[in-house]
């Protein structure tokens, strides 16, 4: 096994809900090597999305540690986390989450812009080309189909060539044919860029496309394959 890009140790997340404390994650351990493709599965409520959110540093765990690309992120402040996300993590969401007021190319250019990279629009155009959407560069999200929007989102996630890509049910809102295309694209680009992919899904078939499956239930890892 190669270098570890992600090490999660004894991760606990408790939230108050309806007046009592609920353990969403209850001692999760997970190691992901560089260039690996891992699928996290589990029924709804098992804590998949919370795990993904914590790995991205979008929330602070109750206990445990997360080391991302050699950096312990549970102790970073908001601004350092924002920069870490910008430089090392790409996101793909179930509901795409493109910025509705920006065109496709502007959406893809946004991470480049936030990182202060030159030639952002040229680079964004290349990226749109790799997802086959260069012809729709100046369309707004509302003018694109679901599959097209997700492809724009993938182009955006890969714009800065992050070492880690997190995908949260990326095909959840798509029909199965389009979903399959999107997964193909995601895996292909991942290979091409040499990045690591952590994919959350409850679709067994989809999960099987990854190199490894981590199954969650009630906030614990119950199996790995």
């Amino acid at each position: 096994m190669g270098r570890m890009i992600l090490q999660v140790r004894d991760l606990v997340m408790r939230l108050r809900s309806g007046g009592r404390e609920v353990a969403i994650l209850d001692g999760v351990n997970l190691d992901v090597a560089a260039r690996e493709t891992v699928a996290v599965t589990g029924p709804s409520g098992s804590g998949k999305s919370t795990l993904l959110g914590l790995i991205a540093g979008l929330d602070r765990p109750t206990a445990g540690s997360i080391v991302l690309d050699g950096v312990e992120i549970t102790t970073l402040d908001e601004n350092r986390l924002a920069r870490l996300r910008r430089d090392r993590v790409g996101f793909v969401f179930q509901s795409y989450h493109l910025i509705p007021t920006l065109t496709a190319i502007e959406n893809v250019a946004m991470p480049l812009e936030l990182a202060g990279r030159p030639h952002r629009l040229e680079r964004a155009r290349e990226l749109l080309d790799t997802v086959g959407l260069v012809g729709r560069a100046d369309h707004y999200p509302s003018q694109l189909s679901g599959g097209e929007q997700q492809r724009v989102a993938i182009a955006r996630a890969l714009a800065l060539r992050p070492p880690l890509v997190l995908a949260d049910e990326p095909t959840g809102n798509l029909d199965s044919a389009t979903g399959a295309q999107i997964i193909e694209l995601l895996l292909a680009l991942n290979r091409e860029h040499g990045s690591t992919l952590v994919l959350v899904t409850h679709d067994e078939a989809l999960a099987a496309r990854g190199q490894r499956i981590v199954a969650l239930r009630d906030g614990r890892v119950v199996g790995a394959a």
Partner: protein
Amino acid sequence: MIALVLRLAWRETRAGWRHLVVLVVCVALGVTALVAVTGFAGNLDRALAREGKSLIGGDVELRSPRPLDTETEAALASLVARGATIARVRELAAMARHPRRPSTLLVELKAVGEGYPLYGRLETRPARPLGELLAGDGALADETALTRLGVAIGDSVLVGDVMLVIRGVILNEPDRAGRIISFGPRLLVAGPTLDRAGLIRLGSRVNHRTLLRLPDALEAAAVRAQLAGVISDPSVRVSAFDEGRPGWRRFYSQLTSYLGLVGMASLLVGGVGVAAAVRAFVARKRDTIAILKCLGATSRLLLAAYLVQAAGLGLVGSLAGALLGVALAPLVGSLLSGLVPLALETRLEAWGLLRGVAIGTGLTMLIALWPLGEVRAASPSLLFRRDVEGNAPWPTRRWLAALPLVAGAGALVLWQAVSLTVGAIFLGAVAAALLVLALLARALAWLGRRRPRFPSLALRQGLANLARPGGHGVGVVVALGIGVMLLVAVGLLEASLGQQLDLERRREAPSFFFVDIQPGQRERFESIVRDVSGVTPAVTPVVRARLAALDGHAITRALVEQRRGRGDDGIGYFTRDYVLTAASALPAGNVVTVGHWWSNGATAAHEASVEEAAARHLGLAVGSSIAFDVQGVRLEARVTSLRQVDWQSLTTNFFVILSPGTLDGAPTSYVATARVAPNAEAAVQDAVVQALPNVTAIPLRDVLERLGRVLDQMAVAVRTMALFAISAGLVVMAGALGASRYQRLVESVILRTLGATRSTVARVFAVEYACLGLAAGVGGSVLAAVLAWAVLRFVLDAPWVLAPLALALGLAVPTAVALAVGSLATWRLLGEKPLPVLRRE
């Protein structure tokens, strides 16, 4: 980084400008009001500067209650030797009378000497040289004087002992501007004519003006300083043309400052709109903010971008408002035209524009800062499907964001206000208004949530709508309520002051002041008044004097100038002419606050009782000594009491009263007051003046009416400015209606799907809007009553009067307006077909 902030700000504006129009309009309205007022003030300042010389009548003017002494005349003579020109003018109140009919009139008599006017032009009809018109007891008069006396050009008029011939009408008198209220119309004669009229007698109050025109080599300020050094008598006021009339200027700077505060209130109401617009904007942008954070944007970057956006919109609104304000400045001028006897010209003034733009933009940013705190709070984890409700922490820094707003707005208001008291009242009023109105709106929402069991569906549902989540009730009630507060407060103030100025209601006030009654005329005067009206006048002996020394320190010009340099606002107490009287009993309306009134058995020692404010400014306490100069004779007394005087009583009141016997032997004349029946007023005045031509009768009714007209004009001006606040309030309401349009559309469709008729739905919305308007009306009116009370009590020192009409209008009008605006905005919703709307849901 900066480029990125600007790009983000621009893109967000590009996509959402429709929702931001409310913000721009709100800022623009507030800035318009503010800039219109400052623009007017600027126009006035320029006019004063331009016409400074004709306004005071020369490069330098000397005003004195007595003829100038020899050392002053010597100084003037040396200036004449160096090329200066001098013109002398005397002004006094006097009575003019018809030679045959019993018709008399109080006039402002002005006697001019050679050379007048030095600057500007005295325009007359017919246009003839002044010397020719005034020769041989010729006179010029205002048109009103002729009308009221019933004479025409060529007719004769009696003044004192002299018969004048009216030779023409005065169309424009260059140095008459500069007084807010006059006693009566002008009558202009030559100097020798006044001398022969026999009007200037014991106790006469004459204003001796000496006007100087200087050659180019002499500078006005230098000559003023030189004369001030030579003239020891501090009651001689020396002013250079560029200082103008300080009292007049003060009046206008106060007036414009009050108007500016009303403009400020409009801006603050607009601020409520800004806050509401930014809040709605951020709420709509929650997802975008979360995505950007996911992509690595820091909170600071986003905050900066949205703040830049707010500033940009504020700038656009402020620029539009500033330009509109400059265009509207003449409107303020024309509202006050009766008070501004100068031609004003509008000019685009860089500083005024800049100031308006800076205030508008700055305030927008300060106000936006608060709702923008949400940007920090918006968590990117929002984007993940969460199993449990997010636990986004309440941003503690949110309250810190309110601090710069409070500090900034407070500083702006204090900058705008005349005095700390006025600024404090205004800030207190704004804070109280925000609090009371917000609480009222919350109470309404609470009532809505309780779903009180009214039998009517419309009432029940309309109230429930007020509790709509994310509702804009608070903003609407606050914004409308502040406008209502301003308008009703003006109405209440007018009612209270109007009653003060209504002679019929002031039964204790006299109808006349008679002045300059000579010692030998007293009995005759009393019997005339008694015979004509059946009323015995109250006659008081008076002695005119000037202040000579306090506690042994002579009152010199040096001392007065020194105090002036320190910014003392009580200089007038040192330089004024004092009217003294001696009395054994404490006059009605006077209360001794320190020391004791002398006992009835006359004391041998000379004692004085001094009015509180005068004592404070003069630095007098019980035990101090005070000395007067009565026509060259020194008169000294010891202060044994301080008095509070009810100046509102409108009767004869004195700054200094002396113990009986103190004024024995001093040159005494008499003043008198009498309250006669309204239909006897003219007869009394005519009879007194026909018999005693030197006695001046000042009819209080006229004076009060003149004052009333001035107040009316100011009220109209203030009201007009308050309309901007109301308009801003309506824009806020329209914005709120626009923001909740979709929500209300769905509500109306659901109600109709459930079987409600269109008119039922309309009634539901009507109840909602009427409640908002009524809450603004109730809150605004109650606040107005408190504000009016505070202004009357602490600024104007006048009693508070309940004005039911103003309060009733304060309730009815906002309710009706809210109902109208709401219905207009909702009308179209009622026509929408339900099915497509439900499908969209």
